[in-house]
């Protein structure tokens, strides 16, 4: 993932430049950030069009080629500096490279307020029709009292600040993915048609003639198939359990389990918690739904991609970690292929788990430590998958 960071100051020495350089250096395992200066961009003048000058064209090219843009803004007189304002005027006059571009705002200033006012102004400017950027909501990264924030090696001193910055940055990466899927630009193929996410087909085990969207699909389907329950015994490979025992056993699994069959119909989850208490929310009435009804449309391409990996045997499991739960949880979604004796794909087992307690326990037992910083959590091949998770309850 390629990101450009724009230094919103034209001063020879700028804390906002330091901040962007720190981001580029410290998180280079996660993303590739190129820091761009605006010192050579002339002051905007409507009567003297310099859009075609090299500095403006260079900036234009860099932005067009980037997946996202981070703007670091100082605060001058409660607003963004004229130098940054001027750049945005050039980039909204004859050319519009920021149109539809995902943007994250950060800012450093002397005041304890840490550029809060200028960040608000910047949001409004980026929202103007000539600019029309897509700014990541929330996640205000404000670095106040900036003259005390860096050590002699230009690193941020405060661990929690770095941690928060990392959270923001990872959210931004996910935000870029979501925006990209939403916009589905020419460069990125929409894969949603590779899977029948509406479960319009049928397989041997499909329970027919019942509305897959019915809230009581489970009741209707079990009536129709005369499904056993309660104290009835079922034979398993290998063992014999009652249905109750089987339920208790599955609910005791240390993860949220979900099963969808090879027809892409959501058939089961180990219903132990209500949706608001789950890491990946499910609701009882969703069972029976086609997968298309469990995801927002913008995620279809990613969902289809994951299933294709498993169905075609390219992968047995696809994992993604979901940082949106904050730094105190390490939530991992695993999409595990379920196959029969002959290796045929029969469905998907999605298990979702916060692995932090296990990691903490293990570290404590063995006296080891997490060093942090080096852990690459978001980048790489899983970027397509990122948008899948967290989107499993469809609210509309």
């Amino acid at each position, binding site marked *: 993932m390629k990101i450009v960071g724009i230094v919103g100051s*034209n001063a020879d020495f700028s804390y906002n430049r330091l901040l962007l350089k720190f981001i580029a250096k410290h998180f280079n395992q996660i993303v590739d950030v190129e820091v761009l200066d605006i010192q050579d961009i002339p002051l*905007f003048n409507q009567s003297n069009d310099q859009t075609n000058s090299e500095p403006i064209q260079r900036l234009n090219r860099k932005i067009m080629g980037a997946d996202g843009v981070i703007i670091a803004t100082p605060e001058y007189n409660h607003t963004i500096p004229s130098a940054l304002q001027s750049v945005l005027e050039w980039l909204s006059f004859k050319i519009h490279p920021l149109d539809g571009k995902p943007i994250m705002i950060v800012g450093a200033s002397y005041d304890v307020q840490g550029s809060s006012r200028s960040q608000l102004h910047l949001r409004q400017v980026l929202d103007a029709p000539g600019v029309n950027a897509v700014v990541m909501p929330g996640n205000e990264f404000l670095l106040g009292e900036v003259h005390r924030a860096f050590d002699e090696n230009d690193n941020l001193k405060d661990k929690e600040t770095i941690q928060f910055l990392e959270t923001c940055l990872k959210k931004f990466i996910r935000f870029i993915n979501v925006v990209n899927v939403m916009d589905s630009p020419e460069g990125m193929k929409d894969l949603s048609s590779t899977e029948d996410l509406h479960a319009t087909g049928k397989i041997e085990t499909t329970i027919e003639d019942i509305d897959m969207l019915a809230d009581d699909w489970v009741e209707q389907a079990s009536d129709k198939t005369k499904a056993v329950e309660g104290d009835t015994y079922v034979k398993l490979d290998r063992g014999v359990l009652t249905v109750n025992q089987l339920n208790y056993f599955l609910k005791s699994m240390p993860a949220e389990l979900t099963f969808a069959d090879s027809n892409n119909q959501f058939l089961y989850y180990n219903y132990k918690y209500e949706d608001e208490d789950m890491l990946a929310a499910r609701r009882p009435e969703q069972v029976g739904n086609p997968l298309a009804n469990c995801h927002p449309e913008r995620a279809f391409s990613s969902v289809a991609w994951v299933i294709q990996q498993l169905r075609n045997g390219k992968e047995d499991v696809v994992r993604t970690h979901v940082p949106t739960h904050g730094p105190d949880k390490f939530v991992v979604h695993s999409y595990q292929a379920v196959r029969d004796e002959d290796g045929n794909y029969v469905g998907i087992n999605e298990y979702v788990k916060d692995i932090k307690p296990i990691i903490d326990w293990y570290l404590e037992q063995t006296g080891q430590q997490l060093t942090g910083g080096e852990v690459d959590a978001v980048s790489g091949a899983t970027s397509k998958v990122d948008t899948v998770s967290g989107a499993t309850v469809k609210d509309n």
Partner: protein
Amino acid sequence: MNNFIGIVGTNSDNSTNRMLLQFIQKHFADKANIQLCEIKDLPAFNKPEDRKAPDKVQQLSDKITEADGVIISTPEYNHSVPAALKSTLEWLSYTNQPLIDKPVMITGASYGRLGSSRSQTHLRQMLDAPELKARIMPSSEFLLGFSLQAFDEEGNLKHQNKIEELEQIFDDFVQFVDITNQLVKTNHSPKKQTKSFSWEDN
């Protein structure tokens, strides 16, 4: 009679904000001497180490200091104040800080219907910053929408109701200037304190 200056908030050759100030200058000639000031030729602000005002900035700064009141007319670029005017205010705040305690009236013209309402809000917030600290006339807003169609061939505002609105605000401003300047004169010392404000030593 009061001496005012009117700052044209743009570096553009053609500007309806300039036309608006020219109209104000002419229309209120019997109520105040108004001199128009351009920011076209000011260099772009770049936070020089020495904090020295370039000549053109110094000239503007002196005019502000001498004036009893200042009218700023701002265009709206991308929902905010144009870079050229921001740069001017950065120079003033960073060097002589002549706007401190200066009575200021804001006007604005834009091509669209909203008449620069968003940039005027930003401008107010800016003038409130500690290094500018102007005395902005409260509860007044002169918004000129559809500014390209607002003037006749002689440069007069076409609509009588807009002229009356402007007259009302201008009269208020003349009073506001007198009251504010009296107040400021009797309170010399706080002004000295605010004068010395700098973000860097804070």
